[in-house]
């Protein structure tokens, strides 16, 4: 077990290293010269030269990479000249808000997906399963921003129940929950579609296993088979789902935050893309990638903990 965890940990480190290389390459693919971005187009050649030396842009790329990596390891993600703030402080401001949005949506989605998936599996190939599956396919195939818009049209504009814009400042995000209803609902619905599909498949896969047939033939009631045997084993793969769905939920959050003008990391990223604020853009990319790697790692380790077979395979 310990060996497995150490091996996965090392693999993850390699991937994170790869991500930093890719981010660095992207940084250098960017149009325009970073010095010009700071000084403006009318700066004198002298000033440009001075700053180039100061920032080390005259050094070989590989040396620049290690300088940049060293800065990263000290928590220095660069400086946003557009917003006149360090990327680290921008992220520190935005990450809690994104965590609040994505966390609420993920928890709600999993709470709803387990009974919904169970219901569908039990009622397999009956009309209500078809309706459920159809609905899930529709939500699954829906552009997130469109779902947000439709919710705004229905619940904000027509019914007037909830505001169409998320709360803006630091405190009201957590206190004016009324404004959080539609963003959380949007993100929950798209995530729910995926989770329910997964739960339904997981239930169906378990229900055809030999141990279920054994239990049935021993005379165990359907209800007991369902809850004591099938459900418990079907929940195992669900354990990994939260970890694995981190990139998806973060992408969904990016779109949701844009629709509802919710000041999280996703909106920061979007605005950075619009205003060519590359340090911020790549800072967020790096954080999101690291979150994804950690999510995968946690999913694998949790799965190995709950399902001993995994440990012995590789």
């Amino acid at each position: 077990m310990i060996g497995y965890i150490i091996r996965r940990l090392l693999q993850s480190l390699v991937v994170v290293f790869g991500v930093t290389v890719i981010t660095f390459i992207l940084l250098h693919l960017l149009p325009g010269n970073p010095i010009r971005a700071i000084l403006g187009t009318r700066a004198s050649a002298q000033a440009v030269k001075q700053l180039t030396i100061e920032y080390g842009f005259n050094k070989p790329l590989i040396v620049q990479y290690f300088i940049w990596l060293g800065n990263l390891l000290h928590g220095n993600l660069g400086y946003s000249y557009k917003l006149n703030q360090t990327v680290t402080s921008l992220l520190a401001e935005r990450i809690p808000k994104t965590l609040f949005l994505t966390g609420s949506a993920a928890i709600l989605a999993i709470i709803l997906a387990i009974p919904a998936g169970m219901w569908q599996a039990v009622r397999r190939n009956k009309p209500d399963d078809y309706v459920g599956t159809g609905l899930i396919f529709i939500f699954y195939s829906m552009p997130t921003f469109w779902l947000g818009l439709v919710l705004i049209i229905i619940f904000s504009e027509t019914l007037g129940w909830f505001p169409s814009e998320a709360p803006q400042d630091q405190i009201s995000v957590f206190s004016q929950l009324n404004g959080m209803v539609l963003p959380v609902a949007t993100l929950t619905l798209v995530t729910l579609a995926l989770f329910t599909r997964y739960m339904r498949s997981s239930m169906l896969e378990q229900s055809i296993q030999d141990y279920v047939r054994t239990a049935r033939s021993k005379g165990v009631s359907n209800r007991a088979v369902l809850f004591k045997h099938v459900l418990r084993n079907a929940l195992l793969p669900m354990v990994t789902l939260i970890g694995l769905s981190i990139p998806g939920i973060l992408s969904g959050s990016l779109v949701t935050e844009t629709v509802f003008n919710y000041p999280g990391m996703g909106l920061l990223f979007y605005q950075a893309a619009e205003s060519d604020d590359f340090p911020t853009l790549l800072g967020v990319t790096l954080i999101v990638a690291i979150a994804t790697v950690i999510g995968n790692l946690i999913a694998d380790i949790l799965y190995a903990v709950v399902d001993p077979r995994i440990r012995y395979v590789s």
Partner: protein
Amino acid sequence: MGLTITPEDVDPSGVGFRDPAGGGVPEGGEGYSSGAAWKMVLRVFIENKLAIVGLGLIVLMVLFCFVGPLIYRTQQIFNNPALANKPPGPGHLLGTNPVGYDVLGRLMLGGQTSLEIGFAAAIIAVMIGVLWGAAAGLAGGIVDAVMMRIVDALLAIPFLFLLIVLGAIFTTSILELIVVIGLVAWLVPARLVRGETLSLRVREYVQAVNVMGGGTRRILFRHIIPNTVGTIVVNATFQVADAILYVATLSYLGLGVPPPATNWGHQLANGLSYVYAGYWWLIYPAGIAIIITVVAFNFVGDALRDALEVRLQSR
């Protein structure tokens, strides 16, 4: 294989996930050349009602977008402010948009772009993925390790984020958009094909080719790649659905196709400013067109996967 969700259960608008472990890769691929196996695949596919519905919807959508404009003729070149924002009615079945274009005609035109980008990006993604995955799997050792770590690292960046960074770097034309989506979406097929290649290259017939002096290229193009066709086709189907959603999302975010070209996402983005004016015909038709198309491709992809799984199980 059972009924587990496999990596093709992928994320369209970014919400969802691609199983990075690449679990559920069909194990091998022998026997694709035998007609009987393919007949069985076809039979299972046809028996699946959702697959037929999906296929029908795709055909209808293609006809609607490409043949529709020949029947329902509209003027889509010049602005006509006098006709702006008319509600649906005779003459304009779905009303007009803020610059006076007929919305139904616009829907057909935008659909052409969305479908073209979807197909083209899927083809690029699958082609790169197959070559990369098969090469890595066949090479093995350090080359395989390095190639797959590159895939791992790129997969760690959620697709939408990577797309937006690339979108910010390249000022997008339709061609660039196709290439950018293709360049991001090849990772999953690469992983799938590499997994299959690993199991294929140790098979007796591949070994036999090797012994008989068949070169690497021959093994790759004659034996490995043809045997991964099932996986490739299933993945490509989902790729089209995904690409359509990515184009829509990028267009909504203002990083999509520049005017005068239009696509469904672009039309939605334009309709956005009129949500409060109650111009529903600028919001619902394009959204519903996207959903129908993406649902249809997902139905077909699911059914294909099930059909191919049946073939694998009954070997």
